[in-house]
């Protein structure tokens, strides 16, 4: 594991309120290059809200989100639009799968290439050589990613016709197509059978080895414990513990959050 010391993502004091609900409360979090970090917590803890705030879908009420892709300047992401954030190098998947249902599997991934390509109206109409090259590059690159996630034999199917596990992998492929330095996965194993989860484990490691840092939300504890370098645990919008899998699983606050109040509390 070649971890670097610079944090790709640094979140400081992130807070988010929906009316009276404090979904995120002064949350701090860091992800370094080459790391797989997990964010866990009971249902409704605010994990998805954290992703939404970091990726620009919600505007957080307070706090800072700083992204430093390797070899690039640090940018503050608060208030930027989701598409700008994606272009800066952070991509995500969705807990409730959000694929482009009436587009083919390949086209879904091709959409991910959008922010790394540039042809526009005139290019589309007149199709000069560089546009043709770009289109072919989009197709080939997307196909290569689909091979990597194991969807090469369904490239021309509508994404709505895929199985649940395949759809989750397609979401990952689509996010990878944007060339993220940090990949955010929201419950990638949900709905997968043990064998698919096993393959997912391998896939995520491979993604990390190819130079994308990974931050994942997951309820499958076996997967989380095997995979993660570090874990953040949250409950009611707060960070209640952080550390290696061993440290976290021994933490009394974590046990309490997961098992409920004990008698002497």
């Amino acid at each position: 594991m070649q971890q670097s010391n610079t944090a790709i993502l640094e979140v400081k004091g992130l807070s988010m309120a929906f009316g009276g609900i404090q979904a995120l409360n002064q949350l701090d979090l860091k992800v370094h290059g080459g790391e797989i970090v997990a964010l866990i917590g009971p249902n409704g803890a605010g994990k998805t809200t954290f992703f939404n705030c970091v990726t620009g879908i919600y505007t957080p009420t307070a706090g800072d989100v700083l992204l430093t892709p390797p070899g690039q300047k640090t940018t503050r992401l608060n208030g930027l639009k989701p598409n700008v954030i994606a272009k800066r190098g952070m991509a995500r998947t969705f807990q409730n799968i959000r694929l482009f249902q009436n587009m083919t599997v390949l086209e879904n991934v091709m959409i991910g290439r959008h922010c790394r390509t540039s042809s526009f109206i005139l290019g589309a109409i007149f199709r000069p050589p560089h546009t043709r090259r770009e289109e072919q590059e989009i197709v080939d690159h997307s196909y290569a990613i689909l091979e990597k996630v194991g969807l090469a034999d369904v490239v021309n199917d509508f994404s709505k016709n895929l199985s649940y596990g395949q759809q989750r992998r397609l979401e990952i492929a689509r996010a990878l197509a944007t060339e993220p330095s940090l990949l955010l996965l929201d419950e990638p194993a949900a709905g997968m059978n043990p064998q698919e989860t096993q393959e997912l484990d391998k896939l995520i490691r491979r993604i990390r080895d190819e130079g994308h840092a990974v931050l994942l939300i997951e309820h499958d504890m076996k997967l989380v414990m095997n995979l993660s370098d570090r874990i953040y645990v949250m409950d009611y919008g707060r960070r209640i513990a952080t550390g290696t899998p061993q440290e976290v699983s021994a933490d009394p606050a974590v046990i309490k959050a997961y098992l409920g109040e004990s008698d002497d509390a």
Partner: protein
Amino acid sequence: MNFAEIRRALGVALWFVFLTFPLMVIRVDSIESTIEWRWMNMLWVAVGSFALSLLTSWYFRRREAAVGKVSDKPPLAVRLRTWTADPARRLPLFGALAAFAIVFPFLFSSYQTNIMTTALMYVVLGLGLNIVVGLAGLLDLGYVAFYAVGAYSYALLNTHFGLGFWTVLPIGAALAALFGILLGFPVLRLRGDYLAIVTLAFGEIIRLVLENWNDFSQGPSGISNIERPALFGIELTLNQSITYLYFLMLLMVIITIFVVNRLQDSRIGRAWLALREDDIACQAMGIDKTKTKLTAFALGATWAGMVGVIFAAKTTFINPASFTFLESAIILAIVVLGGMGSILGVIIGAFILILLPEYLRALADYRMLAFGAILVTMMIFRPQGIIANVRRTYQFTRKDA
């Protein structure tokens, strides 16, 4: 055919008898002050609706039985594509089509040619709106506004400044695109029903401005004596001009098909589709929603602007009455009936919706009724439109790693 279906059909028949009773049965003769009871009509309505009801339940039963079973038959669009892919069929088919299109104005009367030109205009309008509604999924009910912008651009620039048709064609297109962007900005955040309402209002605003701003547009009385397009400075007779406009429109249709086809199958085209499918995921994947929406509105409007210029040149007279909501509705119906996002579908839809009412004139008063019935039937039996959109497949050049 079970008992429940027969009972349902009886209910439907009774309901229709009740609904159509005042129209179909009673006839008041106001001169003689008598009432004529046409009981035979009631019988026809009853028998007709009874039979239709049985027919539809039979159809739906058959369709339900087919659900789950994977059909061996690929969709119509795919079958058409494979059928025409063979050059031995393709060449004669397109050749015959092209030949027919070219000889059309010489074979038929100028009245027929005029109707065909109108149909071609709606093909382009449909393909333009298809970009906004079919591809980008933005329900635009005010599309006619851009058509009006094009028509008034030519009418005003021609009557005031004497600018010719060919000069104004690009100006009208650009102005319409500009209006497309103007409409796009305030509706960027809107979706679905809200977007539909605002675009509808936009269309009405443009029409009301044209109707009431007399100094600018001469109000309801409209603008007359607009020049027909000239052919390299040669003055044309009326009949020649009709033929000329027909070929102009034909060329325009070909260009539109070419351009829309290319747009559809490009980086922007895919972004439109993604926006239609899921706008949050689309943004999260790095697509600029604002830019994508505005391009769709602008590019859709461009076609309406150009057809507007041609419309003004064709009729030589325009007034706001040509740009009512009904026009927007017809163009939208073309897109929906033809099949959202499908070029061939929109072309067929335009021909059906524009030519059918013309040739149903024989049915006199029942023309619009028959037209409505055909539309409703179409939507029941093929809700996805005549030609459902199919996605293309791609060739990979695999690099050996």
